[in-house]
Structures are given as structure tokens and as C-alpha cells.
């Protein structure tokens, strides 16, 4: 395979194509944060001296940058947290506990991130009830089902913007409009959305929005929850108690270097989003067309039309996902195969789409990002093709399909 060798020579291995999991910290972001470790290290709450006032000003700037990134007008609506997991918990539990006397019913979607799903499970143990909306094979919720699920006991609807496994974008403005009509709060986990698609809390009519720096080329360990202050004024019960930082919603000394970096990362991500979306979409199409040109029996999971631009989740039928990851060990991607998780269950997201377990086991998630190049995509196409072909040659399922056997009629033994 001299062609593969040529393509390999054009890239630096290993390749990173797992930008849904996390992203590389942008050098510009890193440069912005470094002084706040060694020079400007004051506690942002120490207003009595210059160290504190310097970092307080830096946090204020970051707060404005982060607010602007989601179309929020007032930066006092931003609560800094440790990341989207905390923001999800603060939003869902905070609303549930604060509005408990208004109702005990919550609505979310079966394909949400575990942080959202498990926060609901925790509330169910306290007596709250949750409706988990199903999705279609495209991964999208049905607005009529949402409408029908809202009762006079419903206090919160939580729907993510961009799904972390399949990249599908939910109809957020329609959801927001519906929630507004029915007087129900709308929370959106936008961890995978900011910098990928335009995010606008007004256009979506969202009341709370969670996001995190490490998915937008910032550092791990810092995120935010945006909480609407007017029309309606959303109130929250904090998760933990202490010095009353962040208007009492999130006590704890502010992580100034991380917050400064988050501000920088958010500003860059949103400024570059329009051009970046075009570039990533072209790369994703190159990836998909390349794979489709080389391989048959390839299935895209989730809607291609309503999808974050750098995101592609594909099932390579008859090739188990973990064995494929092993073969392409110089390319970092992830799989919905059970073998790659601790649970021995294939991806619950793919299951919710109605993807059969046999295909879920063969799925690979590609997450293209800011540092992905065309040469990397071309290498990935060639390398994945080579390994899929090799593994299909040793797949008994592939052999049966070539012999014309319908796998659904086979009497499998299971185990």
C-alpha cells in the first residue's frame, strides 16, 4: 500500500479525531491563562488589595466574553462551575429543589448526556417524576410528543443542543417557543454546541444553558451555567454552600486561570465559528465520501442534515468497533461498541435511535476539530478502509453476507 504510506508521511501520528471527548487547549488560550498562575494569583474575592482587584477584573472580562458567546446580554447571569457536569446538576437539581412546590414533573430526552440523565435519576429517588422522551431514527425529538408530555405539574424541560455521540442538533428554537407558551422552564446542555453552531439564548428562548471550556479548545475543569435573570427570573437552589461566591449559587474560590482561559476560548470559538463550520463541514464530507467510495455496508447514525459540522458517527457493518479501534490505533476515535465501555452494553444513544445492537457494536465516532487537516482526513479514510477490509476478511458475518445468507434468519447461540 504505497498510497497509504504516502498519506501517512503527510501527517503527524497519532491523529486526534476525538474532539467530542475533549479538545486540545489552543495555544492562544494557554498563553492567556499562564500569567494567572504565577503573577496575578490573587483571590478574585480579595477586593481589599491590588492582587484581588486585578483578578476580579480578569474574571469580569471573562464573564463578559463567555456571556457574549451565547448571545446573553447581561454577564451577571453567568455562574462559573467546574464544567458541564456540574452545570447540568446545578440547573436540574437547582430548579427542581427551588420549584418543588410548583410541581414534581420533569421532562428530558433518552439521548441526553449521562450528567443530565443521572441528575434526573437522583431526583426520582427524592420523589420527582421524569418523562424521558424518545427520539426518531434521525435522533431528533418529536415536538408533538413534547407538547403532549407537558402537564401542569411540569417544572423543567431539559434538551441538549448537540448530542455528544452522534452530533445531532435538536430543534431548539421550537422547543423554547413551546416551553414559553406553556410557562415551563427550558434548560439546554450546550456543551457540544458553543463554537460549533450559533448559540443564542434569546433565539432559543432558553432559561438555563450549560457549557464547558474543554470542548472549545479551553482547559478542563471549568464551565458555566447561564441563568436567565429577567422574564422570567430563574431561581436556583445551590448544590453546595460556603462563601457565597457567584451570587450564592456556587460557593468556592474562583479558578481564575481557568476562567480567564474559558473567556478567551469562548471568544475565539465564537468569532471563528462561521468560517470554521464551513471548513469542518467540508472535511466531514470528504471523510464520509471517502469512506463511502471505498467501503460498502456503511451506515451513518443520526440525521446528516441536523448535525454539528465536525461530527460523524458511522457503523461499519460486520466489523466490531473495538477491533477496528485496535487496528487504527494511530487514529484516536471512539466507538459505541459495548467492548469499549465498562458496561458491556452498546451505546444507549444508538439504541434510542433504533440502531440494532449488531450495528451499534460496529459504530465509530469521528470528531473533527480546529486542528484537523485535509491530509489527516485522507489518511484516516485510507487507514480505516484498510483495517475494515482486513477485519471483514476475517469476519464470519461478512462471509455469510457474501454467501447471500440473511443474518436475521440465523439461529444464533448468544451468550
Amino acid at each position, binding site marked *: 500500500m504505497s498510497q497509504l504510506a504516502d498519506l501517512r508521511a503527510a501527517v503527524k501520528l497519532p491523529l486526534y479525531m476525538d474532539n467530542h471527548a475533549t479538545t486540545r487547549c489552543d495555544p492562544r488560550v494557554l498563553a492567556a491563562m499562564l500569567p494567572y498562575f504565577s503573577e496575578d494569583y490573587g483571590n478574585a474575592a480579595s477586593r481589599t488589595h491590588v492582587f484581588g482587584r486585578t483578578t476580579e477584573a480578569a474574571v469580569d472580562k471573562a464573564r463578559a466574553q463567555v456571556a457574549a458567546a451565547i448571545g446573553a446580554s447581561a454577564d451577571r447571569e453567568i455562574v462559573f462551575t467546574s464544567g458541564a457536569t456540574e452545570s447540568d446538576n446545578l440547573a436540574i437539581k437547582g430548579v427542581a429543589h427551588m420549584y418543588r412546590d410548583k410541581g414534581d414533573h420533569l421532562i428530558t430526552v433518552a439521548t441526553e448526556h449521562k450528567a443530565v440523565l443521572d441528575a434526573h435519576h437522583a431526583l426520582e429517588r427524592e420523589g420527582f417524576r421524569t418523562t424521558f422522551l424518545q427520539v426518531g431514527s434521525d435522533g431528533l425529538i418529536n415536538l408533538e410528543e413534547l407538547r403532549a408530555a407537558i402537564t401542569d405539574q411540569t417544572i423543567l424541560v431539559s434538551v441538549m443542543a448537540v448530542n455528544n455521540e452522534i452530533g445531532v442538533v435538536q430543534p431548539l428554537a421550537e422547543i423554547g417557543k413551546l416551553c414559553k407558551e406553556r410557562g415551563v422552564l427550558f434548560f439546554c446542555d450546550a456543551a457540544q454546541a458553543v463554537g460549533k453552531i450559533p448559540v443564542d439564548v434569546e433565539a432559543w428562548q432558553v432559561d438555563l444553558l450549560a457549557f464547558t471550556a474543554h470542548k472549545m479548545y479551553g482547559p478542563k475543569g471549568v464551565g458555566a451555567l447561564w441563568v436567565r435573570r429577567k422574564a422570567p427570573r430563574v431561581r436556583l437552589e445551590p448544590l453546595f454552600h460556603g462563601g457565597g461566591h457567584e451570587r450564592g449559587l456556587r460557593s468556592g474560590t474562583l479558578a481564575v486561570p481557568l476562567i480567564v482561559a474559558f473567556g478567551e476560548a469562548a471568544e475565539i470559538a465564537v468569532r471563528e465559528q462561521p468560517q470554521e463550520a464551513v471548513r469542518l463541514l467540508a472535511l466531514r464530507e470528504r471523510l464520509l465520501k471517502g469512506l463511502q467510495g471505498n467501503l460498502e455496508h456503511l451506515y451513518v447514525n443520526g440525521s446528516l442534515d441536523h448535525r454539528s459540522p465536525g461530527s460523524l458517527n458511522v457503523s461499519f457493518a460486520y466489523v466490531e468497533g473495538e477491533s477496528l479501534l485496535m487496528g487504527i490505533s494511530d487514529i484516536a476515535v471512539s466507538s459505541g461498541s459495548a467492548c469499549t465501555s465498562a458496561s458491556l452494553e452498546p451505546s444507549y444513544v444508538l439504541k434510542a435511535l433504533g440502531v*440494532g445492537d449488531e450495528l451499534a457494536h460496529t459504530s465509530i465516532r469521528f470528531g473533527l476539530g480546529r486542528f484537523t487537516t485535509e491530509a489527516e482526513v485522507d489518511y484516516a479514510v485510507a487507514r480505516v478502509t484498510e483495517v475494515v477490509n482486513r477485519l471483514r476478511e476475517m469476519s464470519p458475518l*461478512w462471509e455469510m453476507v457474501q454467501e447471500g445468507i440473511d443474518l436475521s434468519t440465523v439461529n444464533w447461540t448468544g451468550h
Partner: protein
Amino acid sequence: MAYSDKVLDHYNQPRNVGALPKSDPNVGTGVVGAPECGDVMKLQIRVNDDGVIEEAKFKTFGCGSAIASSSLATEWVKGKTLEEAAAIRNTDIVQELNLPPIKIHCSVLAEDAIRAAVSDYQAKRASRNS
């Protein structure tokens, strides 16, 4: 997950990948597992008139450990009698490949595949002799 060197070796250079003619009276075929569970193994043996396994082939849909377990199984059954082959235990495979607890089911499947191939061959013989 970190793979043992032996798993990597079998994954990268699987021994005895391929197929034997299913209808050959001297060939026994075992297919175990299910696509929904994420692994299917097909193991085939060719048995000579002395009841010794002369040749073994496999094809596996499954993770690296499943591929390695079946590859190792084909190596081990070669030269063995049917009884000896059927006596191979999954724990031997676990030990040889250094499989972590979460991958033990791969070795169980390989043991099942050997036994299924042996029974298939024996059933063929029985129907021939009757």
C-alpha cells in the same frame, strides 16, 4: 484499555484465518455467539482418520481479545485428538493471553467454539456410520 503483547500479536498476525469446506465429511464447524452481543466466532477443524485434528481455521467478529482467543484456539487444537481438543478450558486461554476479567467471555466463547466444532464433526461421523 491496555492489551497484552500476546493479544496484540494474535490480533496483528492472526493464525489460521480462513474457511474449510463446510460440507466436507472430515470438517467440523462450530459457530457461536451472536451479532447483537458483539461477538461471533466460527471455528473449523479438519480431522484425519486417526481422529487427530490436522487443520483448523477461524473467522471472528469481535473485539481484539475475541480475535486473539479464537486465533490461539486454532493453534492449540492442531495436532490434538478430539478428546484433547474438547478438554481445552477457557481458563487456559485467559492465562495464556493475560485477559482482564472483562474479557473472560471471549475465552468462554473460544472454548464453546472448539466444542461446537468437535460435536459437529462427531454428529457428521455418526450420521455417516448409521
